[in-house]
């Protein structure tokens, strides 16, 4: 299979969906003149004219207008530049987009996608490094996805654009230049379904986004010690694929949840709670969470590394659920 970058994969998804449906359009800051900070919009302006637009620095307008456009016959894709800036448009997301369909009794569909580049990269410090799914997971009415590879990036973006509901699409900034196999033929990655990246018998690691590959590396290393890890790549964070997670935990009896976001109040808490509610009697150890420490992401490389979850943290958690010496 051919390999392309994550960034190119999202670009292909955009191009295919914009060709397929003239009501799909995309806008955000510095995406036309610059092609996006990671080149993820390069070439679209030449083909699609005013269906790709630069927006001035107006995040509330970007997100708020996506709702108005989605209610009136188009399928907007709005780029947030950095996921951190979602905070600027929090009301638009939490009180307008997420609630519109429900509070008006289902009068309209809301086919929109908010693309949100997230995660730690290049010592970008506290306001450009966050993984903010925890802010949003508490809001009924949003679908949240996070691809982990070029193939899932393309398939999930296409599915998100076609869904008649609001989707927040978190794309980890470290993933953009990474290459991976992507089918030539058209495909969709289903929303709401996790993928098992690596089957295993001893411990389940539930993870997503960039952490998937870190966990895979840990799993490979642990295999040489005779520990057989199963890795679940959630892909959809909300609603997450409970069936796949629970089935796996019932098989391995041990689980670690790993994400780059802050542990406190994060998705890991939700997953761990679900497991203890629905698979408590299958567990041989407490479910452990691995994530960033409970401070903002600091600047200095030394500090950043200390706060961000590392492979070693995942490894230690696996040992602990196996009741082994760390």
């Amino acid at each position: 299979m051919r390999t392309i970058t994550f960034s190119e994969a999202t670009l292909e998804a955009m191009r295919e969906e914009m060709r397929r449906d003239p009501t799909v359009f995309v806008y955000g800051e510095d995406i036309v003149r610059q092609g996006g900070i990671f080149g993820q919009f390069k070439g679209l302006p030449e083909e699609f004219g005013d269906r790709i637009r630069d927006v001035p620095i107006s995040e509330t307008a970007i997100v708020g207008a996506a709702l108005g456009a989605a209610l009136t016959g188009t399928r907007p894709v709005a780029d947030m530049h950095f996921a951190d800036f979602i905070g600027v448009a929090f009301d638009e997301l939490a009180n307008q987009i997420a609630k519109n369909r429900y509070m008006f009794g289902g009068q309209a569909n809301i086919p929109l996608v908010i693309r949100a580049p997230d995660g730690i990269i290049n010592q970008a410090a506290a306001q450009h490094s966050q993984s903010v799914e925890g802010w949003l997971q508490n809001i009924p009415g949003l679908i949240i996805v996070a691809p982990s590879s070029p193939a899932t990036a393309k398939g999930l973006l296409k599915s998100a654009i076609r869904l008649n509901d609001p989707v927040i699409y978190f794309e980890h900034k470290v993933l953009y230049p990474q290459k991976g196999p992507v089918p030539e033929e058209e495909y969709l990655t289903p929303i709401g379904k996790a993928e098992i990246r690596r089957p295993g018998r001893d411990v389940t690691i539930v993870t997503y986004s960039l952490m998937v590959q870190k966990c895979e590396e840990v799993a490979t290393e642990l295999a040489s010690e005779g520990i057989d890890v199963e890795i679940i790549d959630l892909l959809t964070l909300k609603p997450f694929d409970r069936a796949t997670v629970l089935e796996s935990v019932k098989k391995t009896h041990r689980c670690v949840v790993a994400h780059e976001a802050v542990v406190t109040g994060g998705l890991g808490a939700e997953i761990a709670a679900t497991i203890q509610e629905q698979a408590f009697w299958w567990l041989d150890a407490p479910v452990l969470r691995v994530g960033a420490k409970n401070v903002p992401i600091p600047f200095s490389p030394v500090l950043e590394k200390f706060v961000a979850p590392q492979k070693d943290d995942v490894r230690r958690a696996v040992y602990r659920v196996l009741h082994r010496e760390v």
Partner: protein
Amino acid sequence: MESTQAVFPERYIALPSERKMELLRTMIRIRTFETKVEELFLNKKIPGFVHLYIGEEAIATGVMANLGKEDWITSTHRGHGHAIAKGAQTARMMAELFGRKTGYCKGKGGSMHIADFSVGMLGANGVVGGGFNIAVGAALSAQIRRTNQVAVCFFGDGASNRGTFHEALNLAAIWKLPVLFVNENNQYASTTPVSYGLSAQHVADRAKGYGIEGYTVDGNDVRQVYDAASYLIGRAREGKGPALLECLTYRVKGHYVGDPEKYRTREEVQKMVNERDPIKLFSKVLMEEGTLNDAGLAKLYAEAEEEILAAVAFAESSPYPEPEEALEDLFSFSPKEFPEVIA
């Protein structure tokens, strides 16, 4: 209240008398609806919060007379008048206020979320200033799809102090979006008078900062509102971009039903009721024009009363939703497909 003298093409005057009567009819229907809602709320028949549009009817009426069903509006927490003028059915509105299954939102919205998307009424909004960018998005949709639809955003004087106002007007201006921002300057934002809360003398003065046209008209004179809206909506439809229309008016009722109104005197309110009531003013105009007589006016009130009583009867006889219906309508797919969504 003084208005900047804006002169628009005089289109009201050329309207056939049925259209003029239609304007009055709409204003009276809104007034009758709101008066009944106030009574029902005080009698504890309607729960929640209710913000009345009494005294401001000329604005929704004069603007909406220039829109078709395919055009859109975004509304505010004070949205009943906008909904009625845009063509929503009073019976389904009343049922919503009663929390019934037959209401526009199946009982999930209530007064602050009244909406009828089928006539382009994209919703009241419980968040002040929440409608600006929704209207901008609707106008953007018209531009992307190359239709000649127009969006109108209604907003209060208080809302004009939100940051969303700034972002929406700037974006609409640079893209020349077909949207009209209609400010209902009713002199108060809850307890806060405009004289305290507004840095400019007029909301319309702010238009200059966005390079768009801004006008102030007497919002209690439906003729002025009609002419201004007709001109500005026409321009928007022709691709000439957005504008800001400030309509000076007065909220004669409390901010919400039950407001103790400690921030103003009874005399101030009574003077406005006596001298500036938009329905009285317009009825007088129509009588002087010879379009209306006492019997005609009484008939309009009687018909409105009949309609609203029927709306109340419809609401009261409608069933409540089943409690489990609270779990429906969150997404386009059913909870059965995705049980994880709603635990």
